[in-house]
């Protein structure tokens, strides 16, 4: 360090300043995206409330052992839907999900269960591919063009087909969720089998309804909408947490850069002072020599 000339140090400081400018900009971008994602998350509420109410009402009319999407079986085959981000630079955001998935897979396998993966997000795909895991589907770049139900209904139809045809006995969903602006958590939820909170109190009211073509078919329709919606919501949750994580990571990086700049400025000032002192000594020495 001591060997660096003041000019080298100045160049170094300039370099750190450039990096800081980038991290600052990334933080601002993430903050804007976080606001947008949060608004998207809040906007899901009216739909989910009405959808859940309807499912609970209609499920009371249907024999759950008969309905293929409501059947509960022994969990021998498990589908695990892993949701990460496409990009990094967000602290431990992606590695939390991957670590939890790995430990869950190990746990299921020890119990003698078969685990199949459905991967959403480039980081998950990059990690799990070519490592001997059973991968059913992998998707990347799903956040890029405005998240919507077109994508999730595609995944949803694959899932319901697998459940109905007993290729899987339980489907889990793992993703990060925002707890407060500064913290997020990795959550695992069971998507299938669905256990509606049956509301028998409304049966008399509902029996005045015309349910077309039949309660069974309307329930199936509701359950498909439910799967598609749960996937959509998990993706929005994950992207909200991702932007918060990146904002935080970039905020830390910006602060660290600021400290580095301070430290190097002190070193620069010392080096400059040294150079001046050396020059002064030279001049004084020379002047003294002439006087003599």
């Amino acid at each position: 360090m001591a060997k660096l000339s003041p000019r080298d140090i100045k160049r170094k400081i300039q370099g750190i300043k450039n990096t800081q400018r980038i991290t600052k900009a990334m933080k601002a971008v993430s903050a804007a995206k976080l606001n947008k994602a949060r608004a998207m998350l809040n906007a899901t509420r009216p739909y989910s409330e009405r959808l859940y109410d309807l499912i609970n009402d209609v499920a009371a009319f249907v024999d759950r052992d008969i309905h293929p999407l409501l059947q509960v079986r022994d969990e021998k085959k498990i589908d695990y839907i892993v949701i990460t981000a496409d990009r990094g630079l967000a602290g431990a955001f992606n590695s939390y999900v991957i670590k939890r998935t790995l430990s869950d897979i190990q746990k299921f396998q020890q119990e003698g269960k078969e685990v199949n993966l459905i991967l959403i997000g480039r980081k998950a795909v990059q990690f799990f591919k070519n490592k001997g895991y059973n991968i059913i589907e992998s998707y990347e770049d799903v956040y890029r063009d405005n998240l919507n139900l077109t994508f999730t209904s595609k995944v949803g139809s694959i899932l319901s087909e697998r459940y109905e045809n007993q290729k899987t006995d339980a489907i889990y969903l793992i993703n990060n969720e925002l707890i407060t602006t500064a913290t997020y958590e990795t959550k695992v939820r069971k998507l299938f089998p669905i256990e509606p909170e049956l509301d028998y109190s409304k049966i008399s009211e509902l029996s005045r309804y015309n349910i077309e073509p039949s309660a069974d078919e309307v329930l199936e329709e509701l359950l498909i909408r439910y799967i598609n919606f749960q996937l959509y919501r998990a993706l929005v949750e994950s992207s909200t947490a991702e932007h918060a994580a990146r904002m935080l990571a970039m905020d830390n990086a910006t602060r660290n850069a600021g400290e580095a700049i301070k430290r190097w400025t002190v070193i620069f000032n010392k080096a400059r002072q040294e150079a001046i002192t050396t020059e002064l000594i030279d001049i004084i020495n020379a002047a003294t020599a002439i006087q003599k």
Partner: protein
Amino acid sequence: MYPLEVVTPKGIIYKGEAYQTVVRTADGEIGVLENHMLLLTKVLPGKLRIEKEGEEPKEIAVTYGIIDVRGDKVIILVEEAYEFGEIDVEKEKALLKEAEEKLAEREKLSLKEIEEFEKLKERAEILLELAGVKIH
């Protein structure tokens, strides 16, 4: 007039009074007026028309969902809803192409998959038509 709500996962698209609502369902196109019988049925992709007295009717494109005609109000839950001009023509064309390609080799598909791709094809065709795009 009765209160109507049209809700998608992206938010409440419409909340207000309606004189008549016309929507495509499993039973064909239905018009819901005040005091309609209580009804719960599937909504299929197509045009949703909301008529109010003394106002131009509002027309939007919707995809799959449920209509819940209750005594006190009508709720329509749909996965996607677009103004005709907002329909992503490129995306729908890509979906149509995908569905047609898969269906061209239907012997490779399961019954459930055939059903899914038929639905996808229908959805894309209807949305493209509402967007004013000529297919084929």
